[in-house]
Structures are given as C-alpha cells and as structure tokens.
C-alpha cells in the first residue's frame, strides 16, 4: 500500500518542479479521498439504507439520503478549504549534522473567510494542524533531523485538511527549492593544531591563560568549551553565556586538512569543524585549508560561517582537477517533524 501510494504521488507530481516562489493551491493540484472514518461512515449509511428498505421506512430513506448529501457536501468544503491557499517556504537556518533543521512555512489565506484545520505534513510524520484567520497567514515549522552535511530539503510536503467532518481528506503536494545548509557534525578529540610561523601558518602561541584578555560574553554555541561557560550567570537563570577572550598577541592558526592523516573524509571534516568552533570560541584568528579551497585567516561570525559552509559543501576527489562543485544532497528526503508556530 505504501509503495503504491508513493508511486501514485510520483505520478501525480511528475510535472511539479520544486518551486522557489510561493505556490498557490489550484484546482488541478488538490486531491481528495475518503479517510478511514469516511469509509466507516459510508458503511453506516449503507446499513441505514438497508434498514430503511427492510422497514419500508420513508423517513429512514430521507435521513439516510440527507446524511449522504451532507457527506458529499463536505467534499466541496474540504476542497474549498485548500483552494486558493498560498504556501511559501523561507527555508531554514543552517544546523550541524545530527541537529534538527526547522523549516519555516507560511500559509497565506487570501480569502476574507477563515480556514480551519489546515495541516502541513512532512514525509512519514504526523500532520501539524493550524487555523488560518480571514485574509491572514500562519507560520508552520516542520522539523527535520539533519543526518548528513550538505544541503537538506524537506522534499514534497503535503498540505492537507479533513475539514469539516473528518470523512474526507483533501490534500496537495508542494515542494520548495529552499534548503537548509547542514554543517558537518563537530566531533574529534584532537587539540587545536600548533600555530606555525611562516607564510602558510602561525606559530605556537603562549597558551597560558594569563595572556588572554577578557572581552565580554556571547551566547553559547555548540562546540564551545564547557570551561568557558559562564556558569555563575547560568545559575541565575537566563541563557547560557560564554566568556570571550581575545588574544591579539597569539599567532594565526591554520586548520589544515593535511594535518589529519586519520581515516576517511567525514571524520576529518568533523574534526575540522570542531576546530573551527573551538578556535572561534577561543577568539583565535584561523584559516582553513582544504583540498581545492583556502580560506585566509580571519575571525568573527561571517568568517566562521564561511568556513563551516566550505566544510558542509566539501566534495573530495583524489584527482583535484575533477573536483566538482555540486552540493552534497541526501538522496532520500529526510524525515520531518512538524510544529505549528
């Protein structure tokens, strides 16, 4: 059944390309089928119909037909509840592999009447319901577990409704280009490499704590050393803060791919990622060296992001002349979890 369903989905959405623009749900892309409850209701009506025949009960027929007509009418209602709806995705903030990406969708109701019980559903996840005010919009967040670095997409997402009686489900498939950049998972036990003197690297600096200048607090970010968390501030409640130090005196670091002779690509990237975070949190100036990419030493959020991006989208080829630029994409759309916001 599941496989058949997938095939049906592929077949009806064969013409649909992932969209980078808002999608309006038109008649042609709304589908409608009875739910399990709908089939049960149909069975009930059939029994009532037989009952009416058996007892020659004229009003029995009338009531059975009335309920059938109401069920038919609920088909229009369900259809109308989706028709004209505008769905848009603003993508998701970058995350590290192993974290959950939060894709933000916007459901826009252009009509001057409210819509109730509209849901967004990622693959294999329970639907996330919300109400849309008249001529208003609601934001729905689908949470996707980012399993691998690279670009992450939600794949086809269902917009659905069982309004008003729950007997029928109307739905539409939408797919957006907006993707989430997934950084490698920061992992590895190696200490930061020694700073080298010379053109390609920086020398090993004085690691004594006394030479660091306290530079204030910033919000905790994954990868920060627990030693630097402002535990005193944390016990008073409020967000986790990290003490920041700058040390202009210390030389630049080169986070070099070649320093890691260890096993395969991904653990190396994980270690590099870990280093980037660590170096940033320690307030060091650092550069990144990857086969085919060189990011000169710098410091700050933009630099950090640039490095992490390079790590996320890195493709390794033995022969660097055949390096390709394509992003790493998960073959299967990831599992999603949804929350309304």
């Amino acid at each position, binding site marked *: 059944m599941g496989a058949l369903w997938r095939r049906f989905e592929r077949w009806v959405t064969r013409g649909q390309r992932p969209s980078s623009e808002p999608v309006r749900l038109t008649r042609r892309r709304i589908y409608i089928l009875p739910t399990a409850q709908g089939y049960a209701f149909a069975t009930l009506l059939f029994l009532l119909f037989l009952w009416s025949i058996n007892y020659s009960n004229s009003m029995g*027929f009338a009531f059975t037909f*009335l309920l059938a007509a109401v069920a038919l009418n609920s088909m229009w209602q369900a259809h109308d509840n989706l028709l004209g709806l505008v769905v848009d995705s603003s993508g998701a903030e970058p995350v590290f592999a192993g974290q959950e990406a939060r894709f933000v969708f916007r459901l826009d109701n252009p009509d001057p009447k409210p819509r109730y019980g509209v849901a967004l559903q990622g693959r294999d996840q*329970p639907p996330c319901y919300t109400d849309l005010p008249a001529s208003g919009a609601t934001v729905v967040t689908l949470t996707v577990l980012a399993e691998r670095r690279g670009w992450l997409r939600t794949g086809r997402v269902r917009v659905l409704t069982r309004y008003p009686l729950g007997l029928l489900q109307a739905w539409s498939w939408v797919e957006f280009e907006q993707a989430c950049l997934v950084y490698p998972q920061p992992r590895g036990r190696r200490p930061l490499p020694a700073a080298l003197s010379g053109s390609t690297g920086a020398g090993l600096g004085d690691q004594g704590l006394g030479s660091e200048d306290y530079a204030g607090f910033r919000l905790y970010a994954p990868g920060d050393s627990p030693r630097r968390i402002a535990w005193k501030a944390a016990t008073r409640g409020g967000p986790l803060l990290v003490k920041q130090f700058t040390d202009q005196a210390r030389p630049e670091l080169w986070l070099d791919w070649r320093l890691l002779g260890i096993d395969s690509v991904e653990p190396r990237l994980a270690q590099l990622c870990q280093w980037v975070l660590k170096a940033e949190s320690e307030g060091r100036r650092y550069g990144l060296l990857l086969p085919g990419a060189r990011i000169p030493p710098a410091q700050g959020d933009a630099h950090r992001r640039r490095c992490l991006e390079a790590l996320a989208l890195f493709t390794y080829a033995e022969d660097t002349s055949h390096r390709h630029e394509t992003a790493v994409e998960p073959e299967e759309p990831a599992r999603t979890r949804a929350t309304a916001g």
Partner: protein
Amino acid sequence: MKLPWSRKSRPERAPPPVELLTASALTWLLAALALGVAPQATELSVWLSVLFAALVGWRGLIVLRNWALPPRWLLLLVAVLAGAGVIVDHRTLFGRDAGVALLTAMTACKLLESRGLRDGVVLVFLGYLLVMSNLLYSQDIPQVVYLLAVILVMLTAQVLIHRQHAGLTALAPLRLTGRMVLLAVPVMLILFVLFPRIPGPLWGLPKDAYKGRTGLSEQMAPGTISELSQSGEVAFRVRFTGAIPPPNQRYWRGLVLWHFDGRRWTRPEEPPLNTPTPLTPEGAAVDYAVVLEPSNRSWLFALDLPARLPPHARMTASFQLLRDQPVNEVYRYEMRSYLAYRTGELTAMERSRGLQLPPRGNPRARALVADWRQRDPRPEALVRSALTLFREQPFYYTLTPPPLSGDIVDDFLFRTRRGFCEHYAGAFVVLMRAGGVPARVVLGYQGGEMNALGGYLMVRQSDAHAWAEVWLEGRGWVRVDPTGAVAPNRVQQGLYAALSDAGLLPFLARRGGDSEWLRQLVLGWDILNNSWNEWVLAYGPDRQKEFLSGLGFGPADWTGMTVAMLIALGGFSVLYAGWRWRNRLARDPVARAWQRFCARLARRGLARGAAEGPLDFAGRVAAGRPELAAAVWEIARLYAALRYGPVAPPEQVRQLRRLTRRFQA
C-alpha cells in the same frame, strides 16, 4: 553535558498521540445523544431512562469538573447489568424494543469510556443509529422536524470531535453544519424521489417491529370495538374523484367474521377469489384513493363493495381485501366500489359457514326466532322482526355496556339490553342463523369526518364499526346494520351524536361537538398530515413508479430512474458549482477586473471564447483592433501573471483594476 548532537540514533517513532476530545466537543455530543434518546424516554423502561440520564450527567460532570473517567471494571459491570436488564425486560436481545434498549444502554456505557477521537466517531455513529431508531415509532411531522434538529446537533458534534477544527467556537460550527444541511436538502430530495426503491422487507422483521399500533383486530368479542372507539387516531383518509357518498352509505369494509364459538367471532381462512368481480353493479361506480395509516395488519379498507384490486393484494370470496405484506408504512391505494350491487349464488361452503352456531346455548334467542318463523318463515320477515325488536324494545347504545355472562346473546337480548355495535351485530347474526338465514359479521369503519378545507374524508379509529350481512335469494349478500335500528344517529351523524355517554370520547372523536374553532384548527393540522402521508410517507416502490410514470416520460423502470437521478444530481452540481464560482468572483478582485475588461470588449463585438485563454484572446483582439493592442496586451499579461502566477502582490492587483477601469474599447 549532553549536547544536542551527541544523540547517536534517530529519535524513536512515538506512537501517534491520542487526540483527546475537547470539552466543547463532548458537550455537543452529550447534548446530541440526550436529545436523540429523549423521544423514546417514555417507551424505554424507567430504569433504562434513568440510567441513561445518569450516565450522561456523570460524563457531563467529568467534563465540567475535570474528574477522572470511571475504571474499566465498573463500566464493564454496568454494561453487563444493563444487558441483563434488557433481557429481563424483553426476554430477548433481538427485536425492535430490545434492540433500541440495548443500543441506548451501550451508548451510555461507551460515553463513559470515551476519551479520544476514535471514541467520538463511534459515539456519533451510534447517535445516528439512535436518531434513526426513533423513526420506527413515529414519522409524523413534529417528530421529523425534531429529529432533523438532533441531526444538526449531531453533525456539529461530528465537526468538533476533530480537535483540529476546535478553532470553530460558539455558534460558528452550528452555522457551518446548518449551511451544509441546507445545501444537502436538494440532493436529498433528488435521491428521495428518484433513487429506485426496492420493496421491503429484505429479511425477517422482528415480531415487535410494529407493535403498539391501534386498529381493528382479527376477532370480535363484546368490548373489542367500544375500546377502539375511544381512540381519536386517524385510521385512513380518503379522497374521492367524484361525488362523495352520503354518511349512511359509507360502510368501509374490512374483514368478515364467520365463526362464532359462543363468545368470540373469528375469521376462517378463505381462498382467494378466482373470478374478478362476482358482483353485479346496480349503479354508478365510486372512485377514490385511500391513504392508510400503518396498522401492522394486512387488510385494506374499501367501501361496500370493492370492485378493484390494488397491487400486491388479493380479494377473498367475501370481498375482503388482503395485502401480501402487513401495512407497516403509510400506504396509498386507488379503489373503486359499487354502493348498489347484487352478488352471486351462495356456495355450499358459504352456506355451511353462514349457518354455523355452537350446538347448544342461547335457548331463549332460539325460541324467539322459532316463534318469529311460525308467524312468517320468509328470511326478509325474520330480518324485519329482529330490527323491530331492537328498535321497539328498550335497547341502548353505549360505550360502557355492563358485562355479559353465560349465554351472552340471551343475556344481552333479554337482560342488559345495553351494548355497542359489536353486541348488536353479533346478536343479530346469531338470530338469523338460528332462523336458517345465512349471515355473517363484517368489521370495518362507518362514516368518517369530511375535512372540507382539504377536500378529503378522515376516518378515525372511533369510527370503527361492526355490522351484519344476510344472504337473501335473488339479491345475494345484503348489508343490515342493526345498530342503525337502535341509534339511527350513529349512521347518520357519527358516534358522538349517537351516544348517551359521549363524554367518554376523546376530543378528536367528538365530531359535531362544541369548540368549533379548535376543531377547525385540528382539521387544518390534519390537512398537513394528510399531504405528508400521501406524498411523503406513502412514497414507496409502487407510488414512485406511479408518480414518475405520471410525469409523462413513459413508464418508469429502475434504469430510467437511475439515469434521471444521475442527470438531476449532475444538474444540481453544475448549478452549485456555478453559484460558488459567482461567489468566488464577487470576492476576487482580479477576476472581477478581468470580467469588466471582457465585458467592455464584448460590447464591441469582441467576445472572449469560453475556452480562450487570456493571451490568445489578447492576440486575437490585437490583430483585429491594432489601435487597442498595447492596452490589451498589458492587461492580458498582467491578468495572466496574477491569475496563473504564484501570488498576486496587492500593488499589481490595484494596477490591473486601474487599467481595466480606464480601458475604453
């Protein structure tokens, strides 16, 4: 410290959470179920009504006070006890009353274990069954209107049990379901009229399926008819095609009783008639249609004597009309009768049956007849003597005759002399048989009240009557009504005028009594009921064929009906879709602007084809009117972008409206 990514495995798939029923959903559900059971509160056993009310109240308190649901074992206990109670009450779990009682009890128990959506769905479905079960007891107008309201409440509960629709608050869900029901009515009417009906029953009906209907029973003993006479219920209504026969000619024949066991008159099996009309008419035919209320009996009523056979019915040699199935729905049939007639020869069986008497008993009556025969042995003389006896001796017509004992005919004729029609008819037939004249008792109704406003005759249970027939050489079976000899008013003006103790009659049976304006109101209400019966309740397989054939499209068979039904449904869908489209248009500024633009061009003879896209249309207009090309292209492109593109930005919509308003063809 546990960091977000230190989790290695995928998060486990949690089972889908139970969608708990909201307080508002439960409130609507409780209201709907209570309203659905209410009409049966008097039919159900007292303990069951109390149990249902208590459990509904309990569930209501659980909602209000946030109490916990009762434990499983307690519910199970209540369910088992309730089931046992139903068995004790009805001696079975099957049948109409037991079935309804069980359904009520189990719904109440289910209510107390209902937490989630699935339970809510089950309860709503049980609720629909409960609503429908009310129709087994009554289908009259107030009941149907009431049940329609209950359906509305039930549908509202059905909307609200879906937690995701909980954004609908206050009366919004009721407005929604109200609109849905209104829109469902045309479809319901189409299905009701055109859905090919199948004659029931499909399987055996429970014995008590139609219990509790008043009407003539199959036998007659002192007291059976006088009891029935105290019901003001309508037995049937009649609409005549031509002139209406006078009251004393309105003998509505039901069944013929031959056998007398000394106390009780009963009806033997009679073979159906082979020859179509064993009567010779001596006057014009009377044509009419009868709408019979459900009686749970198979006999049909017709004026003396019927000369036509309704479908699925047969006639016996004694002119009884019997339908194949008991009349359990409002049943309409066309009839023809001859009020003046002669019947044929007496068969041997009729003679032996018509002269049957218990071997002994009623010696004084027999002696009296022997005395009459000595004076004049002709049958006509015997009839006259008997009627003279009733007319001249102090006999009284009363609803409350004293009880009879021993030889009941002797006791009545010579001691009490107070009786209702069954006493007179029974005694008369006994006298005739004792004198060697074949005679029989006929049960039916006599008279009926004219509803002048509605132009039809109402025959009530209080018009129930018994009379006699004697067989006379050369004339055949002749009707004799001995009650008429005692109380001529009974035949002329009805029961109320004839009785000395008419105060015992219910209001509806007091024809010709006081409070005329109230009576007018009653008659007006009856007109409504009659139309309801004739056009709605009596609309079964036969009436459907008759009605649809009468529309002039030829005889109606089920294929024709199905086709007509599908066409009608399709037509309605198109109308509805058109109406919705117009509504949408009224709300949609882009479409409205485009319509305006097209209308202006159409006035210049450039109408857009129904299937022509905006750009094709613009191309055609631009080719025909080059001076308009620029403006037309601009509008068409903008419209196409707004219509078929992703989302319309408000400033572009305004732009389109501005352009179309300024556009001059």
